[in-house]
């Protein structure tokens, strides 16, 4: 049986811990158990330290037959390698990954660097939202002249977004 963390060495440390009434099992090799500080059972919490491996087993139960439509990667492949197939896999396996990411990281949403391209997209979609809101309001107020102008602006913006 391979180590759940490095997936390279044979596991020699087998851990079972009950967290919030749920049993979680983890198999570790010697090196990884040392690295995670498993020798000292009081010093660690399974869920915090072992990168949500219990959660990984959970996703497997729910959707073992799921396959990424872009790259053909399956849940079983993830279980085997611990890596995903392509960036679209994050959408394909979103449900299960959510639990895993929550256990692994500080938060579930990125708060860091925003690439310029994405920033521009974000700006455009914000603008679009404002325009649509205004359009709705103008129509409700039967202010058709404004509505027509807004519709033109929206069309232009749509072109910008798709280009």
């Amino acid at each position, binding site marked *: 049986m391979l180590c759940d963390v490095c997936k390279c060495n044979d596991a020699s440390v087998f851990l079972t811990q009950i967290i919030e009434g749920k049993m979680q099992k983890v198999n570790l090799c010697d090196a990884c158990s040392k690295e995670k500080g498993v020798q000292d059972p009081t010093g660690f919490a399974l869920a915090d330290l072992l990168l949500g491996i219990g959660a990984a087993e959970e996703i497997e139960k729910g959707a073992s037959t799921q396959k990424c439509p872009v790259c053909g*990667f399956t849940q079983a492949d993830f279980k085997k390698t611990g890596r995903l197939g392509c960036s679209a896999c994050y959408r394909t396996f979103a449900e299960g990954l959510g639990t895993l990411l929550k256990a692994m990281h500080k938060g579930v949403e990125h708060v860091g660097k925003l690439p310029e391209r994405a920033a521009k997209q974000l700006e455009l979609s914000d603008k679009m939202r404002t325009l649509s809101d205004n359009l709705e309001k103008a129509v409700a107020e039967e202010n058709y002249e404004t509505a027509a102008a807004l519709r033109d602006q929206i069309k232009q913006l749509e072109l910008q977004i798709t280009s």
Partner: protein
Amino acid sequence: MKFSQVMSSGGEWLRGEGPHHQVVVSSRVRLARNLRHHPFPGWAKKAERTQILEQIKPQVEGLTEMQDSFSELLQDLSALEKQVLVERHLISREHAAKGVGSAVVMNRKQTLSIMINEEDHLRMQSIRSGLQLKSAFKLVDKVDSTLEARLDIAYDQRLGYLTACPTNVGTGMRASAMLHLPGLVLSDLINQVIQAVNKIGLAVRGLYGEGTEAMGNLFQISNQTTLGEKEDEIISRLTKVIETIIDKEHDARQVLIQKKSDTLSDQIGRAYGVLTYAHAMTSKEALNLLSVMKLGVDLGAFPEDRRLPIDELFIETQPAHLQKTSQQKLNAEERDFLRAQIIRDRLKLFPKPDMGKMAREPEGTSSSEPNHHE
């Protein structure tokens, strides 16, 4: 630039004297990035990997930071050359195992190295001497922004940068520092420190990263999480923890000088004796003894101008560097003989340790340089 030039120039961080260089050997920051609409390297077929490489490599080589760079396809490097790059931390062990479809590009100063098709399409790393995580991040961040404008990078509004391994998603950033902690090891405090660091979500690893043994009292400390925290927050949190460890290391050294000076003198004397006279030495033994010599320089038992030869031996006695210098493939036994010989030659003119000069620091300046007054 040719590989021989990589070999002959040591790289800035190897001889650099960055801030806190007595304890912090080097600081590294790496960013993981991928192209949208392409399978990650581990899942891509050979043809796809090659196509991705052809798309990325010219963009990387075209960076202003990469003028006069060393750029090589992994299949064109010998096993030995790859290992030399691993020993200098310019490529990962995982990358060294790659062949067709992968490449490495690095600048002349060896402060910036970009791996193409490692675990992710792009692994960009900046390495500096001493504790300089902020400036290392600044360099790699700038390179990232330039490349981002030229390549379609996989980014998700909610999850950030998408990476092959979910442990890297978000910032895709791993910041790490290599610490030399003989004081904490000799005073049996190191496990306490490692556990404390683990508990606050940082990882401690050995010399060559994940799953490697701690040798030469060298430890790598890095952030474990990449999602839900900003890059500069991660870096300042890590820097703060490292500064605390630096203080603890200096405190431990002071306690050793004051309470266990005999043990300390014995360790330094033995290291000096064995390194000066041994005729066969494994790389592990060499690292451990050189670590004690480095401590000796830090504490004033050896003159300050002897620091560089010791620091250089750390890397020159690594297996691949040894074979590359001697221009031949050697078996383990031959390496051990050659290693001992190189060390003996280098230490021939080395003065004997002067334990009387081991400096006690005045109260309250534990993180400053030890003074060398008599």
